[in-house]
């Protein structure tokens, strides 16, 4: 007794069907990532309500985090453009390189900013209490999600550079990108706004 396909000879699902399955799976995975992020954000909000938060004057500046946010939004807009031209590899290539630049720029900006906070503003763990824990914890979760989405875009770019059709992986990356952007918005509101 074995599966409905004991010999493994049944044809695989059609590419369209497999793609639809994958897209649905990706949406669920992003929903799970949002739940994880919301749980951490809930913890942060709890600490704010309980007053375990530095006064507004002691919060780190907002300029560089805002630049990082703008990079994410720009990357999302460029990704829409890339999707529009996905069937024309030459046009899509430029858009995708822009997306990758924006995504890499976001991660680099975040890394540099957290480096500055840690080493030059003395916002360290554990000395800075729960605020620093929330700042670095939320940033790590969001950055991990952004890195996964960026890897998806990178794979699509490689496919396009090789001349393959890449509309499907780009379609999958799009909700992920906006998901990570919304996550960053929540992070910004929780950590940087008084």
């Amino acid at each position, binding site marked *: 007794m074995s599966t409905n*396909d004991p010999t493994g000879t049944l044809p695989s699902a059609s590419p369209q069907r497999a793609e639809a399955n994958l897209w*649905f*799976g990706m949406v669920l995975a992003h929903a799970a990532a949002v739940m994880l992020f919301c749980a951490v954000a809930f913890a942060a909000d*709890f600490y704010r309500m309980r007053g375990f938060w530095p006064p507004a004057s002691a919060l780190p500046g907002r300029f560089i985090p805002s630049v990082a946010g703008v990079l994410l939004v720009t990357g999302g807009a460029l990704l829409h453009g890339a999707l529009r031209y996905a069937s024309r590899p030459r046009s899509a290539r430029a858009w995708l390189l822009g997306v990758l630049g924006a995504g890499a720029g976001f991660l680099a900006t975040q890394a540099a900013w957290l480096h500055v906070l840690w080493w030059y503003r003395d916002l360290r763990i*554990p000395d800075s209490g729960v605020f620093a*824990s929330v700042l670095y914890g939320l940033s790590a979760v969001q950055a991990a999600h952004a890195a996964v989405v960026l890897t998806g875009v990178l794979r699509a770019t490689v496919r396009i550079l090789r001349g393959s059709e890449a509309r499907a992986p780009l379609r999958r990356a799009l909700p992920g990108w906006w998901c990570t952007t919304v996550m960053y918005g929540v992070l910004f509101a929780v950590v940087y706004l008084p």
Partner: protein
Amino acid sequence: MKPGAFLKALGASLWTTDPQRVAKQYLWGGFLFLLVGGLLAMLIRFQWAWPGQPVPGLAWALPESKGALTPPAYTAVFTMHGLLMIFFAVTPLLFGALGHFVLPLAIGSPRMAFPRLSAFGFWAYAVGGALMLASFGVRLGAASAGWTSYPPLSTPAFTPGLGQTLVTVAVLCVGVSAFLYGLNFVVTVVRCRAPGMTWGRLPLVVWGLFYGAVLNVLFVPVLAAATGLLLLDRVAGTQFFIAGAAAVGGGGDPVVYQHLFWLFGHPEVYILILPAWGMVGDFVAFFSRKPAHGYRLTAGAMGAVTALSGAVYAHHLFTSGMAPVLGRTFMILTLLISLPAEVMFLNWLMTLWRGSVRLTSPMLAALATMIVFGLGGITGLALGAVATDVPLHGTMWVVGHFHLTMGAASFLAVFAGLYFWFPRLYGRTLHEGLAKAHVVSSAVLFIAVFGGQLVAGYAGQLRRLYDPYQYTFLEHLLTLNRWTSWAAFLLGAAQLLFVVNLVRTLKWGRASESNPWQVGTLEWTDAGPAPVVLRGPHELSQPEVQRQLGRDWIGQAEPLPEEVPAVVPSAKVEVAV
């Protein structure tokens, strides 16, 4: 066989994407942890019956105390018992083993939507299990902060050493596994059903697995957040849950962990019980030889429980300093969730009513699941209401209640499923007499053991006490606890009936018939690799079927000889008739 070919074959059998082989991997993994968790339960019961006395045969593990459980060993034992049973035994047996086995077969899909996720999921579970077992051997011992791992107990200040950290990582691993099969199940049910397998034709067990999988996808990430933050507190010096004197620079709040943990933990109860309810619904219909009464209402009630399950968690925090208005809100929501459960129970009773009941081993196990879950549910009402929860919170009443619901009911449901699908899983028939004896003795002894815990809790015995009788007001409970412990040892011994049956069947068992239970669901009726489903799962004792086929069941994809093909619109059928 050449070494290279052997290694290749071994790799192929270990890294398998066939859902039925993955199911077997989970089955044996689940049995292993059920054994370890069960032995730990025996140690706990020994301690409550003969506190501080040497446990026969344990001197090799605890040489300094000559085999007696010391307080640190005792806390590690009950912590690991809970974690192993919930995360590594019952959940993987229900979802990993029975879920992977039955889900694709029952919906007529050749495979899971993402076969490689099944393999990844199993190996995440295996790594987690290995870490759990490894934690027994590290310096300062295994985790000892209780199965909930509440901080501040689970922070380095109170549980130093590698054991608690390993266990936290292990829970994260098993969370990854649960998330992966949850996602796989949801996509498989939504996207991979056979033609004609409408939502209204799904077996109830598929509904249960589907709802449980949805809860896994949504709430396991919350557990990941809680344990992830706890892990950071333990290894990276963050301050999420560290408060008071142990905190640096202000610190966080341990109550946040309680919120996050129970936001996952309460749905986890339903993750365990929804597939069990599905099995009960199906088996009661199959073995009463009747269509399931109120099929749509039962599926809807399971959906209502799923929807409400995330909104009731805070009844676990009634005594954690909650605002009264929140307490009342969560009390009402908690009590509300019993309504859909009642609908299901009534439907099962109505299905049994005037049925041609066949008391097979799966049916007995399903009925036992109903009874113990009913007892667990009723005793839970007292914990859902603020006024009665306050005195009962933290007592053995809670232990008895959740062991009846999460432990006994899920355990019996696992065996209901196992006895039902074993002939399909291994092609052999288990000995029915041994199976019935196993089910009945287990059910009776479960009620004795957990009933004893309820009584002890009602008498005021607090949970997790190393020696309850150091308090004068609990001294009189020694006799009760000794009797309860004897019942627990008998319960452990009763499992040998299953072991003997399993070994005997795998070695000498006769080949099973193709459809030994005479039911029409797709996993039994060999409808071919691409079935077209024509009817629901419980089409039993239909007069037309009996007239044409001479039997009381028909396959879901089996046309009647005189049946007009299903694709013909009903108007044309009338014309043709």
